């Protein structure tokens, strides 16, 4: 089976394959243009006759559970990134598969981290054929240099839910690492030694995988409440000594930035939101976990406090600053997708206004609406933006896969999408003639805030009109690109091979771009 076949040019002008890992793929057609047909995927029907009446599904080891699930060559195994860089389960699953001599597996993580780089040896020996999820750090380097046998597939959090729900990504065995669980398989993330807050990224897997294994280091007597994962979906429960390293679980960037340049970006962004009337009583916002995004939240809080106003809801990743806003009454609800620090975990446990959500509620494009499009303003990052406002979030300018997509793509449907990004990083200009990889179409990206000026997408005439006479440094995106090139010099385009190594799937499952192998 070839990695890919049938190249075509999609609606945004990118050459993409229509056959990926032997399966048909639809090229990107435009925002909202692809209309899904048919019915959702459904897992096999189970019967209680096959499960113990006392509800005790505890099995001796991951290997034993995998064997009981009927693990065989060519299957897809999913894991999740609730423990981020502190995950101790993902690698053990493939250690067990390798011990059993299994080959050609597909690994479908909700995201990969540097802690998963030991899996490279299984990509090399054929235990794992390819990854569908994200390929960060060493895995990204390995993939981009052409090491993976199959074609990598990158999806957003919402896109992953969509793919599993629609049957595009069929999960044979889901392994859900849980900070607390009972023997029946009810599981939660908000307590236990490896508490991570919530288990939303595993929701689709629990609902649609053929077999589900819950792995925990904190087995409690039935019932485990609140249950974020229903035991009724679970086949086996495995108890380990330790499932995660707590200090690495909450390892997101959880402090506001002290960098003066980033603070300037945050300040300009907050001022932009203020002058355009976005910050008002009852507004909603989502800011990521980076230091700049956190700082913007601080500025929002100051504005609300001074004016006696409050936000209706904030979309998390939650952190101590967002929790403080909730507890101070500056926001009614946190609709949380993942918690970035222990304060977030505590708040989710204790505060009725701090709600756990999932990619289904927040991001799934093949649903009856989702939360992301209802948010007034979202603050995101990007590795590159082009003069048509198309943005890249997965590859470095030298072509290497660097990051996963996360919820980034899904958040582009917010009412105002702002990317506060430096004009250049070291000598690398961020605004380019053409991005190395398109992850988000420019029509959905409204504002680029840099330390040397703010560019508003010409499509957003409403924002442009609101800022007439503003003291903010409004520039065209072309002016910003020229400024960066005046300082850094005009960069050459990376010389990449003709071979594709990974596909980027849009929120609706179509292929928006494909990543080429780098020439080493």
């Amino acid at each position: 089976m070839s990695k890919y076949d049938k190249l075509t040019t999609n609606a945004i002008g990118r050459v993409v394959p229509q056959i990926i890992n032997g399966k048909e793929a639809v090229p990107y057609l435009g925002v909202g243009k692809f209309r899904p047909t048919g019915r959702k995927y459904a897992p096999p029907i189970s019967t209680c006759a096959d499960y113990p009446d006392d509800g005790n599904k505890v099995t001796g080891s991951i290997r034993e559970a995998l064997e009981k699930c009927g693990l065989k060559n060519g299957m897809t195994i999913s894991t999740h990134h609730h423990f981020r860089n502190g995950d101790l389960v993902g690698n053990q699953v493939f250690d067990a598969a390798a011990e059993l001599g299994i080959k050609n597996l597909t690994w479908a993580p909700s995201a990969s981290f540097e802690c998963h780089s030991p899996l490279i040896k299984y990509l090399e020996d054929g235990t794992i054929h390819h990854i569908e999820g994200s390929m960060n750090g060493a895995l990204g380097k390995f993939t981009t240099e052409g090491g993976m046998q199959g074609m990598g597939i990158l999806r957003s959090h919402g896109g992953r839910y969509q793919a599993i729900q629609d049957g595009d990504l069929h999960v044979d065995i889901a392994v859900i690492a849980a900070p607390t669980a009972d023997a029946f398989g009810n599981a939660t993330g908000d307590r236990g030694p490896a508490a991570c807050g919530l288990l939303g990224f595993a929701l689709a897997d629990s609902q649609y995988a053929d077999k589900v294994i819950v792995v925990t280091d904190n087995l409690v007597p039935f019932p485990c409440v609140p249950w974020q994962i229903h035991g009724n979906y679970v086949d086996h429960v495995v108890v380990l000594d330790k499932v995660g390293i707590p200090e690495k679980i909450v390892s997101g960037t959880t402090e506001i930035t002290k960098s003066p340049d980033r603070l300037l970006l945050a300040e300009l962004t907050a001022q932009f939101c203020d002058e355009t009337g976005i910050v008002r009583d009852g507004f909603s916002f989502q800011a990521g976990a980076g230091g700049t995004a956190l700082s913007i939240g601080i500025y929002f809080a100051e504005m609300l406090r001074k004016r006696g106003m409050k936000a209706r809801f904030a979309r998390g990743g939650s952190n101590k600053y967002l929790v403080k806003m909730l507890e101070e009454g500056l926001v009614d609800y946190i609709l949380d997708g993942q918690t970035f620090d222990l304060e977030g975990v505590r708040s989710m446990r204790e505060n009725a206004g701090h709600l756990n959500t999932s990619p289904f509620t927040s991001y799934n494009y093949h649903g009856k609406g989702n939360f992301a499009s209802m948010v007034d303003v979202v603050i995101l990052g990007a590795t590159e933006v082009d003069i048509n406002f198309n943005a890249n979030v997965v590859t470095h300018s030298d072509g290497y896969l660097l990051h996963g997509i996360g919820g980034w793509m899904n958040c582009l449907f917010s009412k105002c999408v702002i990317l506060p990004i430096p004009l250049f990083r070291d000598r690398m200009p961020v605004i380019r003639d053409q991005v190395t990889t398109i992850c988000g179409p420019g029509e959905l990206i409204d504002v680029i805030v840099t330390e040397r000026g703010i560019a508003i997408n010409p499509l957003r005439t409403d924002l442009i009109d609101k800022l007439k006479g503003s003291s903010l440094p409004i520039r065209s995106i072309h002016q910003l690109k020229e400024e960066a090139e005046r300082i850094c010099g005009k960069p050459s385009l990376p010389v990449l091979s003709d071979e594709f190594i990974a596909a980027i799937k849009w929120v609706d499952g179509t292929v928006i771009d494909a990543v080429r192998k780098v020439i080493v």
Partner: protein
Amino acid sequence: MDELQYFLGIVFFFALPDVTLHGNHNTVLNIKPEADVAAIAAIGNKGKGIRSDCHVTLEIRQSGGIEIQLISKVKSMYGDSILSLCNEIFRFYNISDASLLLEDSGALELVIAARLEAAIRQLTGSTKEYLTEFLPQNKYQTARDRDRFSRLYLPGNSPSLMINAGIHKPNGIILDLEDAVAVSKKAEARFLVRNALRSLDFYGAERMVRINQVPAGLADLDYIIPHNVNLVLVPKCESAEQLKLVNENIEKIKKEKGINSNIWLMPIIESALGVLKALEIASSPNVVAVAIGLEDYTADLGTRRTNEGNESFFARSMVVNACKAAGVQAIDSVFSDIADMEALKQTVLRSKALGFDGMGCIHPRQIRVIHDNFAPDEAEIDKAKKIVNAFIEATEKGLGVVSLGTKMIDPPVVKRAQHTINLAVSMGKLNADWRNEFLNV
């Protein structure tokens, strides 16, 4: 720029173990002469945490042509242009056989050129200068009495901190060749500072360089005077004689290069002797401001610097009085705790109350606090509005005497009030058409 880098800068600023001290405060700098030919030159910075910089290891050979090994994080984007620049510099110095290892962490061209030039000149003893582009927007002059609330210190051998300094809008940017540069790096820092003066956009900030202590620091002038430095900071100043030497050397370079612009001086008083000589220092030609450096001063007194500043009250008052007597600005010392903005604010308010016109800063986060608190407050603006309005009305009526209520207003008071108004307008604290609003209230 991250805080750690700034913090490192501060460490250099206050603790230089390699500086040899003789007598009271005569620092003797062991700067390697450029003609001190070594077989291999190693210039620049590399390693973890180093950004926007590069390190060159250069060996000049007798044969074999030019060999360049480039290790760069931006190789795919700028590899060809970096190699082209290096070859151009080799041709400029007529070098046809050399081995160069260039380890690049995203350095701009001006940095690469400075590093390679420093290495070549160290090995060859050449005095030829490879000059990078002189940006047209860097060719401005500054007025003797311009605002100098804030002046941001930047280590002269750390390019990553220089690149974005101007966007934070300090009144002045100081490229520091003195305490913020390790002794072993002082020679190479001169090339970087020179290229920065030419090719980095200062975004309108006053372009300042702190030279090394006189007399060693006189050699720094060759690297900055021809490149439109607006103001030279003279550290550890203890006499007018030191400033005379600086002025003479500047004049000599200006004459050689055909430069007509004013180059101002800001001596820094950092010792008990300097404090006692404050008036003669402040009264020296081309001096527009005198700064006080309290870390060295308190060390000289044998005491410890405190936030309250009682130990330096006399010195600060002396400097302020000398400056006011000489008609120049008084500039307070830097505040070294970059995390404590409230303490900085209180320090600024005390400085302003003592009569200082500005203070130094070591982190861009301090700039706004310094500006906001040196800026005229509401009461000062209200008073100034009344005085200026009274002056305008008196002028319109042809009256020679300005009065406000029952009080006569002297011309210096009017001048100061007008300055307050101008300042408030320029800092966005007052509308330019304030008088219409004032008259309509």
